[in-house]
């Protein structure tokens, strides 16, 4: 009755086109953030930041390109990750695993354009090679992400948020 998804009903497409109050970006699933504090599907890559297991002040910037699946992992100062021996390191595997929790396997495989046979892990189906990618861009996006937590709250009304309804669990 109130399904507005484009494929949810026979006239779904026109309903999607003619509604103003929609949740276009599906909400992400909650996950533990300690190991991989930041994951995103952006700029044509699955990219994120993985906390170092040994040094609490160090993080790795890991990314996998959509389509080619070429990957990179380095510290935020562009030192290559020591775990990249011709195959993805544990940081990259952690990044993919957490992306699957956050976005769901479907959305991740669709974005990376990867075929995942039933029962297989997306991380095992990537065929790329190591290719340097800009860590600084991803790291600054992570810092920008963290900076949101420092933006003060406001008690003035924001009418624009009426366009952005919270949505609930279905069922």
């Amino acid at each position, binding site marked *: *009755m109130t399904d507005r998804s484009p494929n949810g009903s026979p006239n779904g497409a026109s309903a999607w086109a003619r509604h103003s109050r929609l949740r276009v970006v599906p909400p992400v699933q*909650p996950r533990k953030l300690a190991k991989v504090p930041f994951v995103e599907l952006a700029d044509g890559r699955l990219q994120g930041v993985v*906390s170092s297991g040994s040094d609490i002040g160090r993080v790795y910037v890991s990314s996998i390109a959509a389509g080619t699946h070429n990957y990179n992992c380095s510290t935020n100062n562009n030192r290559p990750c020591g775990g990249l021996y011709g195959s993805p390191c544990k940081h990259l595997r952690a990044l993919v695993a957490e992306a699957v929790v956050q976005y769901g396997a479907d959305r991740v495989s669709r974005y990376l354009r990867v075929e995942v046979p039933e029962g297989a892990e997306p991380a095992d189906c990537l065929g790329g090679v190591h290719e340097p990618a800009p860590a600084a861009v991803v790291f600054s996006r992570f810092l920008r992400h963290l900076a949101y*937590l*420092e933006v003060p709250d406001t008690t003035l009304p924001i009418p624009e948020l009426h366009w952005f309804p919270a*949505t*609930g669990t279905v069922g």
Partner: protein
Amino acid sequence: MLAVQLAALLGGESGNAGAGAEEALALLDGFDDALVHGLARLADERADAVAALAAAFAATPLGDRLAEAADAVVSGSITQEHLTALAGGRVALSGAVHDALLEGLDTALGRERAEWPPTPGDPQTAGGTGAHPAAQPAAQPAAQPAAQLDGQPVAQPSTQPSTQPPAQPAGNVLGGVRSWLRELAITGWRGVDHDLVSAADQVIEALLAVPELRRLAVLLDGFAAELRASCPIGSVEHLPVRRWADLWTRALLLSQDGVLTGDPTGEPRPAAMVSGRLLVLGVDVHEHGTAVQFQMHAVLEPADGGTSRLVRTSVTVAKVDTIVGTALWKLPQRHKVLLAALADRRSIEIADVPLLDSGDLVWHDDRAFVSKPADPLATARLCLPGALAPAVPPLDRAPVRIAEPVLVEGYKVTKDGSFDLGGTLLAVDTERLPDCGPLTPKLVAASSACVGLMRWDGGRWTLQPLAVQAKVKREAVVVATGDWALGPTDPKAAKAEARAADAVAVLQERAGRLLRR
């Protein structure tokens, strides 16, 4: 809301917005379609749609400017000024639809609404919203809230903690917003790529640093995130055409110099300072990846014994996409009184709190304390009739903003979840139950009374539940969206929250370690 009131509301024609609304919406659709493909590539049909939008204003003061803008856009020379004129036309049209809808609802409910205080000759009059197509009833001119009450100027209290000074003047930032929006309109949604979306990042960051531009920052951030998530848009089958045109138009309007920065303090001026008792009706939750707004609807019984009023009070907090569900309630925790009143279902005593002409109470937790228990359904039953509804600020007259609290009872729930009220069906929007609260579609389906918000979207009215009375295991319970404001009370939800660990704390630790290097 009684069966006869619902029948009166839904009995009208053309999506219940009255005569002319269908035509106004068709004009919007035409213009919105032009934005899908970009103003740089206007095929004949879409050029006609832009011209038709302008033609609707022929008999108004906006007529000449819009005609000129439409001509220029069709011939391929697209300036900021032309886009602003067209956006103004689109805002005025949806404003007219809003006015007709709200009037229909008020009439059906017998709800009395305050008049927007006119301030003729106000230099801050917003472009566009003052003009209306000839077919629509004349509306009041757009104006900023007056700072006077009974002729007495009201002192401006500081409503916000001051933050660090903005990195650059608001004017420069707004210029950046306008050029990004122009680029978008020329390119069209279909042509948007990662580079164009990423170009908004810096602008949004600069906006977030200026408190008075917060509305625009939150809007653009949500909009850009949708474009980013939809990239490459060229191959996406279905686009939220009306929605993105709404967001683009609104952003362009708010980015005009003086619209958000007109007042030297950057804050809307309060119409009055009020004291009295607040009786909570429920809380509406708005959310995108980087912001959440908790908007409480309540009835204010003024301490001086005056007419009780329908008010809203809001807290908006910045967040990141991985903070979701019940964890959201941890973000506004400095507003302890508000959260406690929601969680424990109690009324609130307030003293000297600014009330804006829009009916928005600017929350000050230190001027409020939790009072006696109050059930939202009882509040709606006893206090909603007769409460004075607030005027809608001219800038905010969009159908989406309509969120009128009502009480519905004595219905039968149909198979698809609608409420059958004496033979008239009211669609219930169970997709809009926030997952930070315990209210579920199942509880709504088992309910016998419901406090909710009347909303209009996609051509029809729906009820968005805020609180219900339902039978669970033969026991009558009241469940409301704000019940978990102090944390989930349901063991299953509490467990889930513990499992997800403390996202807020982890990110704050990372921020502390990495941000200030």
